[in-house]
């Protein structure tokens, strides 16, 4: 059964307690959003997601989207839910108040996103893409375009998409063929076909604003010849009402493994009127503004599904009576013990729990960096925050979605045969979570981004934004206290990360394939260390709370137990990844291609 209550206590922990000293300092611009206000926002978001979005998750998956007479219809109930979502202002959450947004800090926004993804990933994609599109428009479009389009996108009246992929090019966008012909009035005529366009067409909003990558006639070959265009489905009239059709059609929708209630469309643009966003031939840079924000959000999708899978598994493990505890019956009054008594079921539940808490803590840190990047008054802090976001974006995207999928698989396993049956609801999580490892740049691409672009950037400056806080923490926490084993474990894992970094830097310079061969393991290793650092901090804070007396003994006690599990049963994976990295590419590349 799909069970979900927003983990509000843990969210308040990462928001108010864990990162009080985050190294970025207090942000005056965000003072209005104190703990009282943010917890009220989180509570209402929790209620909305539980009562409106969750009930549509299974039914949306069963029904899916349909294409009839060129129009995409979303599953029953989605239209009403979207209306409630936008009218309640949730679509405007993180957007700029200048265009009607609520200007909430990212640290709150990311937690609300998590709830949306936990309760209905498919639904979340529609407003999610609109938000991503509005970010790119805000950063790169002309004032006229911004003033005209942003208020309606932020209110959710109009939605957005990003149209990158074509049938023959996904990862390698340099190959794309969609054309843009300049017109005398300064607009362009866009023609071409796109595939895999999430929310490309649907019945939720009055208009759909596509951000389309295309080539100008004089464009150089490859990625340096791509420009970004804003192309509405319906050409708006001057008063902002929806006008005639703009030659944008959905020719087919994909039949997918998961996120079935999200319309994934093939789109045809036939001399559709569009406007340039940003500089000619600089479309990739403009698109990456959107892409980087989206990658963090996709990471949160992994966490969201991971949390829902965990809660659903816990519910079943307590409910399902089967066999007796190995140490003697725990519930002699019942015909059998609930399966939660078994160590192997505990292994799965604790792994899921630790994955979720670890990702939530790390995600909260990155979200604070996003806020500091935007609002810190000291330019040095802004730079450091920005470096940290750049470094952690691929880690959050790949690590969170890998672990989210691991959690979904574990949930199916906890349910046993019943997990493989649709009605149980948990196999949906496994199918839905799978896409997050693929879109917005596959997790392999994320790993390449980390080792190829982020490690060496500015002679390791990005890396320092992460390494310094960790090593400072280890130095400051050394000693014979109760934290000793944890700090030693963290120090060892951090040492492995530093060594791996040096190995990759050294070998990668001579042979880029060596860096490529180490990338995935390296990203995971960095993620494991980052979560270890978070768990160590959490343990320290929880220990203090318990020592000084608290009414929430149960919460802090559980936090320490989960952290201890993480250090003893998950963090040791660092050694295996370290050894794989050390072994290098040789065995990976040895087999001749024809032998496959």
């Amino acid at each position, binding site marked *: 059964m799909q069970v979900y209550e927003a983990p509000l206590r843990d969210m308040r922990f990462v928001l108010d307690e864990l990162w009080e000293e985050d190294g970025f300092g207090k942000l005056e611009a965000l003072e209005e959003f104190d703990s009282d206000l943010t917890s*009220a*926002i989180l509570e209402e978001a929790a209620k909305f997601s539980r009562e409106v979005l969750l009930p549509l998750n299974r039914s949306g998956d069963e029904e899916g989207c349909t294409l009839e007479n060129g129009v995409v219809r979303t599953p029953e109930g989605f239209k009403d839910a979207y209306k409630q979502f936008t009218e*309640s202002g949730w679509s405007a959450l993180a957007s700029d108040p200048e265009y009607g947004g609520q200007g909430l800090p990212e640290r709150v926004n990311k937690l609300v996103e998590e709830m949306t993804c936990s309760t209905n990933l498919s639904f979340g994609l529609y407003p999610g893409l609109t938000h991503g599109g509005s970010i790119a428009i805000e950063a790169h479009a002309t004032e006229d375009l911004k003033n005209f389009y942003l208020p309606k996108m932020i209110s959710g009246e109009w939605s957005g998409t990003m149209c990158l992929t074509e049938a023959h090019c996904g990862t390698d966008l340099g190959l794309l063929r969609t054309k843009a012909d300049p017109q005398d009035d300064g607009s362009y005529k866009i023609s071409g076909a796109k595939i895999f366009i999430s929310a490309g067409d649907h019945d939720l909003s009055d208009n759909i604003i596509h951000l389309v990558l295309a080539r100008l006639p004089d464009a150089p070959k490859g990625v340096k010849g791509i420009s970004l265009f804003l192309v509405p489905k319906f050409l708006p009239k001057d008063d902002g009402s929806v006008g005639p059709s703009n030659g944008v059609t959905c020719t087919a929708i994909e039949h997918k493994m998961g996120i079935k209630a999200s319309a994934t469309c093939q789109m045809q643009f036939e001399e559709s009127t569009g406007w340039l966003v940003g500089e000619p031939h600089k479309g990739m840079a403009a698109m990456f503004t959107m892409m980087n924000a989206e990658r963090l959000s996709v990471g949160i999708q992994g966490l969201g599904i991971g949390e829902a899978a965990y809660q659903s598994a816990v519910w079943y493990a307590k409910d399902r009576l089967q066999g007796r505890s190995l140490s003697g019956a725990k519930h002699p009054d019942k015909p059998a013990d609930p399966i939660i008594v078994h160590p192997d079921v505990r292994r799965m539940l604790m792994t899921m729990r630790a994955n979720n808490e670890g990702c939530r803590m790390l995600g909260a840190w990155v979200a604070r960096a996003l806020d500091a990047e935007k609002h810190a008054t000291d330019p040095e802090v802004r730079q450091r925050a920005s470096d940290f976001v750049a470094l952690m974006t691929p880690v959050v995207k790949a690590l969170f979605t890998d672990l989210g999928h691991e959690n979904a698989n574990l949930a199916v396993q906890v349910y046993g045969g019943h997990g493989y049956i649709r009605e149980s609801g948990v196999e949906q999580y496994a199918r839905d979570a799978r896409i997050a490892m693929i879109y917005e740049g596959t997790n392999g691409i994320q790993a390449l981004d980390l080792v190829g672009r982020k490690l060496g950037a500015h002679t390791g400056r990005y890396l320092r934004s992460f390494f310094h806080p960790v090593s400072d923490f280890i130095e400051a926490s050394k000693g014979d206290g109760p934290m000793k084993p944890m700090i030693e474990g963290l120090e060892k894992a951090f040492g492995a990360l530093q060594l791996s970094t040096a190995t990759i830097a050294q070998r990668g310079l001579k042979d880029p394939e060596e860096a490529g061969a180490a990338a995935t393991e390296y990203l995971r290793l960095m993620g494991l260390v980052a979560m270890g650092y978070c768990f160590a901090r959490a343990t320290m804070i929880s220990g203090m709370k318990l020592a000084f007396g608290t009414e929430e003994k149960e919460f802090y006690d559980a936090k320490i137990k989960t952290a201890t599990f993480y250090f003893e049963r998950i963090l040791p994976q660092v050694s295996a990844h370290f050894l794989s990295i050390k072994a290098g590419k040789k065995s990976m590349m040895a087999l001749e291609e024809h032998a496959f």
Partner: protein
Amino acid sequence: MKILVPVKRVIDYNLKPRIKADGSGVDLANIKMSMNPFDEIALEEAVRIKEAGKAEEVVAVSIGPAKAGSDTLKSARAIGADRAIHVETDEEVEPLAVAKILKAIVDEEQPQLVIMGKQAIDDDNNQTGQMLAALLGRPQGTFASKVEIDGDHVAVTREVDGGLETVRLALPAVVTTDLRLNEPRFPALPNIIKAAKKPMSTKSPADYGVDTAPRLKTLKVAEPPVRQAGEIVPDVDTLVAKLKAMGAV
């Protein structure tokens, strides 16, 4: 016109209550609490009346522990109450004491209309509204499924056993709400943000001169007995025989 809406903080309606091991009451430790759903309906109705231009101010009141002020009354302001009064007490307050405190507040605030839930889902007493009307000497319209303000009167459609009954009350009056009156909204984000800035005053029962000492004594709280499995009998004769054997007929 001013509308007063009392709201109670109760165990969340999605949860299954657990009884304390010593049978002294329901275990509320670490339990999610929310606004009583009937009160949410009352508040929604008050806000709709205000939005229709028939009232100027909606004041929410809650009597209970600190959290009733920080959580329940914050939600109330997010839904649309203009300000809040929190009467803080950690003691259990029985319907009569609640009604007395509310009477004192009504005397002070002089609202034309008091709208409240017909009952709270924790104790299911269904008494406070009626007691308040009696203490005030004002007309009451209970179990409302429709409320229409008409000048200095209010027409209340009541859900009674035989169907619907409509009463016309002279204002000021007390109305208690039934489930079908309306469907409460989800608070909009801008209103949640604004709610933090709307005023709230904190009082104690003593400020209103009300003695909240319980008049009733709870002897024991227990789970309802587990239902016994049924039995399908082949015919009426067997049924009658069985019933006779059980001494039921």
